[in-house]
């Protein structure tokens, strides 16, 4: 019983922060906002936010802030650039050929970057992100400790970040 409710709680929790992250990503793609600009503005807003609001779910709070920001920018750019019809189309139509091409290129890059990872980080990342397993589940599945799971995750994330996001 407790096991079931525990699991339900985790599922709900994962669902919620995934939702916020997804929305953030969608909005950012739509606005094509620069990561640095978004981060700068989010940082300034974080400084003005009370800790009590942040503490319950800092991650979800962060993503929500970033996605709201992207939405604001989108609205603002709609207002400030009413004469550029091309710009407007890009803003209104999310599935432009350009965005689609980007998506395809992104997928190809992701695939290449994943293929370049060592076996362990790749397996751990797969089980975590694709199968949605908890660290405990991954550990027992692969026959390693939870500490090792975390370590491989860090190595994997870091490697992917270095490969996929140019400085």
């Amino acid at each position: 019983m407790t096991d079931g409710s525990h699991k339900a709680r985790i599922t709900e929790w994962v669902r919620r922060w995934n939702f916020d992250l997804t929305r953030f990503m969608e909005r950012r793609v739509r606005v094509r906002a620069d990561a640095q600009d978004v981060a700068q503005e989010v940082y300034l807003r974080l400084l003005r936010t009370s800790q009590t609001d942040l503490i319950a779910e800092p991650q979800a709070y962060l993503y929500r802030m970033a996605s709201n920001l992207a939405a604001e920018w989108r609205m603002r750019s709609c207002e400030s650039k009413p004469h550029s019809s091309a710009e407007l189309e890009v803003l209104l139509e999310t599935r432009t050929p350009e965005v689609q091409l980007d998506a395809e290129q992104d997928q190809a890059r992701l695939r290449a970057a994943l293929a370049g990872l060592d076996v362990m980080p790749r397996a751990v990342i797969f089980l975590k992100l694709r199968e949605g397993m908890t660290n405990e589940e991954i550990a027992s599945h692969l026959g390693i400790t939870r500490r090792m799971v975390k370590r491989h995750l860090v190595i994997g994330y870091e490697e992917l970040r270095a490969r996929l996001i140019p400085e």
Partner: protein
Amino acid sequence: MTKRFDEDVRKGSGTRHSIVAREAAQWLIVLSDSECTREEREEFIAWLLRSNLHVEEFLRISELTGSLARFRFWPDDSVADLIAKARAGSSGAVVHIGAAAASGRAVPAGDSLADRSVADSARVVPRSLWRPCLAAAASLAIISLAVGVIAGMFDWSSKTYATNAGEIRSITLEDGSVAELNTRSRLRARFTANERRVQLIAGEAIFNVAKNPRRPFRVSAGSTEIVAVGTQFNVDAHDSSTVVTVLEGRVRVTSMPDIPPRDAGRFNPPLDHQIELARGEQAIVTKHRPPLRVAAADTARATAWTERRLFFERATLRDVATEFARYNDRIIRINGDVLAVKRISGVFNATDQPTFIEFLRTHTDVRVREDARGWVLEAGASQSDVDGAER
């Protein structure tokens, strides 16, 4: 920052950027852990507030993992292989039984997963030893077929489950997955060491699949094949089409052509005949057609049958009668085409037909006659839309 972080990982040189990237990755992992504490969250906030560079890296790495979670090109085969390799690598020895025992001990005592891990590892031991040989032989059709036969001799079980009219049954399959079988449905389960195969011969079922990426869970219904790894989904098999609704996780749906089942494994369907569904998505699969994706399905409605409720929204009386017939032995027959397309809206108890009949009796345009087989509906005075209420 925090002592939870691995010293080995923290060490090592790097530019300022890459150090921040590593910290961001570590924080993401700590926060995504269900056991993340309040202290850790506080530490995280303090770290964020220290620099806008921290915010930037954290958002970047979140975005990266977000796109990986939505990545649709992880091929099943390479993943099973990958995990086998990872497991083999983690033991550092050829004797897998030793590795399995070690992994069982490595999990903290009192963790409910520990037992499962030992059992799970023990069960798959022979397979992980075989795997390198199998991989080499996979390109030879004859050999892989022979392997299929051998696997069948060693551990092959086929069980059939069926429900009668009005019956809803919850079946726990041998791997721990649960199938909720709706009325008048039939299901056959055949589990081998490397896959779990379930055939929904007729009717509807919800599958709550136990996680095991090394042993894919495949459901076939008519010409539809659904592959899931750890997920929950509903399959409604009709004569002409199959409706798949994903309640949790992710599944791959394939519209299969007419080929003998034993050849199905070697068949590569056209790309557009295969789609992936995420939580809340639904696909309608018709023979020889690409699956049709329906985004944002009403999952509450798709699973209403588990509570024996039937939802109708401007459904024709003919459809309503057909739906009731799935749950009951006594049937409702309709005389006249005009009456058959009368629209009905409402929520009814699937096994309580008399209440529904009473509801119809309140409409002046319907006359009800009862006989030994059930009820006969005939047109009364005028046609009008009716709305029902929760019964």
